[in-house]
């Protein structure tokens, strides 16, 4: 039995904020659309997997039916495309992780816990994951890339910001913000060039 199955067997680099379930960037869990799959409706498939007590059904604003469960023991997941749906139906959480590893992106569905000596605050890890998707890089690469940028102290917040030009060549910077004690990555985002320049000009940002 793998005690750390909920973090892909890697408790050092990934974490589960609730202590029980895997975290996906966008929230809810396990769903199928109204379309039948292997002859089952969303409701039938969910009930077959998790039982009536463990399964919930709801519709989104586009009237798609979602079947999902909060606690499926092995983990918590949202299935976003037919490939992933198939993986989950065949083997659940472990199969997703195995498929990610086979695809060269092990643990892609999990959140980074630390990097380069920095602990990563859970909400920041979610944000970094979104940035990774936007810039088609892994979360690790996003952090590694941005931390090679220039470091500025932020007079407004007391934090430190690493700014590095956007990897897609567009105007602006990627930003990683580190706590005042220098131990935690606490947020990340994109900043317009003007935002950084005016921050420097107005004395908010000071080069370290």
């Amino acid at each position, binding site marked *: 039995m793998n005690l750390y199955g909920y973090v892909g067997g890697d408790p050092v680099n990934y974490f589960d904020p609730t202590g029980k379930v895997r975290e996906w960037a966008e*929230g809810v869990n396990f769903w199928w659309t109204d379309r039948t799959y292997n002859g089952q409706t969303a409701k039938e498939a969910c009930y077959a997997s998790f039982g009536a007590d463990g399964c919930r059904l709801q519709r989104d604003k586009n009237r798609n039916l979602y079947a999902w469960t909060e606690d499926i023991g092995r983990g918590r997941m949202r299935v976003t495309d037919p490939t992933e749906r198939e993986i989950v139906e065949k083997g659940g959480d472990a199969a997703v992780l195995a498929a990610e590893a086979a695809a060269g992106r092990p643990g892609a569905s999990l959140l980074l816990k630390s990097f380069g000596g920095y602990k990563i*605050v*859970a*909400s920041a890890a979610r944000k970094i994951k979104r940035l990774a998707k*936007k810039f088609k890089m892994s979360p690790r690469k996003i952090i590694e890339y941005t931390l090679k940028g220039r470091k500025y102290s932020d007079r407004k917040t007391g934090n430190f910001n690493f700014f590095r030009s956007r990897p897609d060549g567009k105007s602006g910077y990627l930003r990683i913000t580190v706590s005042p004690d220098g131990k935690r990555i*606490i947020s990340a985002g994109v*900043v*317009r060039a*003007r*935002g950084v320049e005016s921050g420097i000009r107005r004395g908010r940002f000071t080069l370290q």
Partner: protein
Amino acid sequence: MMSNLKKYIDLIERVSKGDILPREFEIDFYHPYMDDKNADRYDENYQDFFDLICEKLDTTSTKIDIESREYGWITYEEFLDWLIEQYTIFQKYRNKQ
């Protein structure tokens, strides 16, 4: 150029009225504005305001754990309250000009 500026203001008004969810607002506002080649040409007051919104969104999340909260993270509901307040201040400032 101006159509994008109008679009951003429209998004702020729509989320303020509850026509769209804050998360939908973030999707339609954050990266489109960050990627907007013409943003530097907008009135500086608008740029400051939009930059401020994006900075706030950088510490906004669906679920906030205790540690994140310690570092200033807020929920989308709290973001919406903040945005409505800031937009009211911004409009008063604009009207005085």
